[in-house]
């Protein structure tokens, strides 16, 4: 399946955006370790912005980065969001409340606990009434979401926002799923070549195995190993380094028992 990329977003500890990521990948910048800062979502208003859960802040941050780079109105995009964690902090808080006094379960926490809360807030903020979905395949959530987004870009009549994100679990759930930092990434994908195409991706099943290619830059190796959404990083590296006329192919992981490969070209 051939799709084109017109926008890219990324955010994790020490890498707040795509421009920083490009500089780091090119060796033009030094990586500095830092605590992750959740940027408040400017797209939301009032109480929704103040009370936005961590997952929504992260997802809307990278989604808006990619959208801004593409120059497309958010209302003109379909959306495929993918995550293993959903919002871990809300689950930890809600499970504690249910164990202590379930009558105090917060209605806001409850409606924000659904896996599609992030894409729901994206639709509200962007005004998009196009189809939107929220998918997961545990550790393989990125390949699953990429496969779905590529199909959607080709089957639908509007470009697709692909957004993947994972948020660390607070104690005591962190023991079950130890994530070192939040990681989010986003791409705007087109079924037809747009005037401002940044790169072309050929996405397809691959018979040569399911082991994902690893990132070249050392600074996000730990995130890559532990955070499902960081499976996007090797693809982002190739996108940052791509040159006209060059092709590059990587395996991004598994969909079911089959590898998913992406050929990157200009």
């Amino acid at each position: 399946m051939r799709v084109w990329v017109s926008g890219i977003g990324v955010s994790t500890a020490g890498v707040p955006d795509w421009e920083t990521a490009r500089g780091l990948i090119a060796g033009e910048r030094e990586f500095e370790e830092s605590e992750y800062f959740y940027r408040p979502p400017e797209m939301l208003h009032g109480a929704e912005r103040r009370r936005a859960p961590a997952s929504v802040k992260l997802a809307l941050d990278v989604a808006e980065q990619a959208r801004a780079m593409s120059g497309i109105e958010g209302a003109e995009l379909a959306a495929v969001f993918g995550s293993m964690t959903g919002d871990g902090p809300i689950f930890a808080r809600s499970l504690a409340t249910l164990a202590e006094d379930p009558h105090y379960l917060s209605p806001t926490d409850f409606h924000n606990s659904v896996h599609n809360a992030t894409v729901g807030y994206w639709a509200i903020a962007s005004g998009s009434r196009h189809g939107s979905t929220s998918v997961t395949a545990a550790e393989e959530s990125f390949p699953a979401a990429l496969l779905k987004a590529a199909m959607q870009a080709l089957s639908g009549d509007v470009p697709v926002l692909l957004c993947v994100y994972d948020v660390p679990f607070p104690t005591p759930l962190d023991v079950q799923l130890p994530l070192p930092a939040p990681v989010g990434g986003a791409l705007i994908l087109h079924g037809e070549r747009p005037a401002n195409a940044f790169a072309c991706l050929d996405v397809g099943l691959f018979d040569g195995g399911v082991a994902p290619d690893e990132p070249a830059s050392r600074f996000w190796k730990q995130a890559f190993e532990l955070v499902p959404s960081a499976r996007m990083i090797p693809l982002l590296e190739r996108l940052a380094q791509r040159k006209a006329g060059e092709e590059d192919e990587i395996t991004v992981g598994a969909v079911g028992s089959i590898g998913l490969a992406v050929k990157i070209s200009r």
Partner: protein
Amino acid sequence: MIEPARPVITGYTAVNCLGTGLDAILGALRSGASSLRPCDFPGADFETWIGRVEGLEDNPVTGPLAVYDCRNSRLALMALQADDFVDRVSDCIGRRGARRVGLVLGTSTSGIQEGERAFLERDADGKLPDWFDYRHSQDVHATTEFVARLTGIEGPTLTVSTACSSSAKVFADARQLIEHDICDAVLVGGVDSLCLLTLYGFRSLELTSPERCRPNDAHRTGLSIGEGGGFALLERPGGSAQALAVLEGTGESSDAYHMSSPHPEGLGARLSMQAALQSAGVEPEVVDYINLHGTGSKVNDLVESRAVIGLFGRDTPCSSTKGWTGHTLGAAGITEAVISLLALREGFLPGNLGLEEKDPEIESNILVQSRTGAVRHVLSNSFGFGGNNCSLLFGRSSS
């Protein structure tokens, strides 16, 4: 844009409070017997009615896949065994090859009941008990992975989690997998089991009914939460298995309005129904019956009626069947797809169980009583939190 695929449906089944398998469900639909009951779910201490599946407590997942044991996987297993469905899946894998068969399941809360139990057993330091295994129970993809391993499906496998539209949207994903020649067949479905998070969550939003739910009734008081699981096999047309029905069209939309309230004019609902008709290339007149989302909440039922009238006018027969099954949330899409497929097969239009006095503001043609009649096209609606909408159009098979 590429030409939409029209996969055929070669098998389907479901389990919910009405019973296990198609005969039990059809029997209850014909007799008008509801199996909703006053809430007796352990730990849920407030007045409401639920649709509970019998026997889950006594049938753990054992053997090599015991690591997945939880209420949700038990329900998935029960649904796979209903009508010997697992044999149909094996047969399909035999005909198509394991790598050409995909798996897309919907759920909202997966096995979160394990997390609820684990938090009750935290030790003095707040640590969770050793038996708790998030990855194979509470994780949103756990039940799907369990089904993949149980059936031997090796093709693309993913979980859709868009609250109450989850297991309707799986049909649209399956259609794309066939359209793009990634799969020849896809097992779709959904499983959602009762848990305290959803029971108390809907209560906190003041959406649970203290009585049996009565969708579209003037005096409706909210939802009866249910649990259920179901599956359907979608295949590329032209295979050797008998086609029971056709997935004619799928439509998806977003409200872009509010996290837990629908758009007041039902704009998103109308867009998804319109998209389903458009993808099938048919006019609204061909639809013989609409299975409504019809939760029994004041707002949902009214808004859905406005959307239906806006597109179909006041004549098309429609009903909510949640008076039978309760609202099975992430399994509602597959539960009502199965009911829609039974309506097509039997020429049977289920009434709106529980309706005593129709809400005068609901002007769509709500079927009070079940009746028989020619059914060639059925539309099924599923709408979820986040303003996530999906409509499916099923048609009779020409073979």
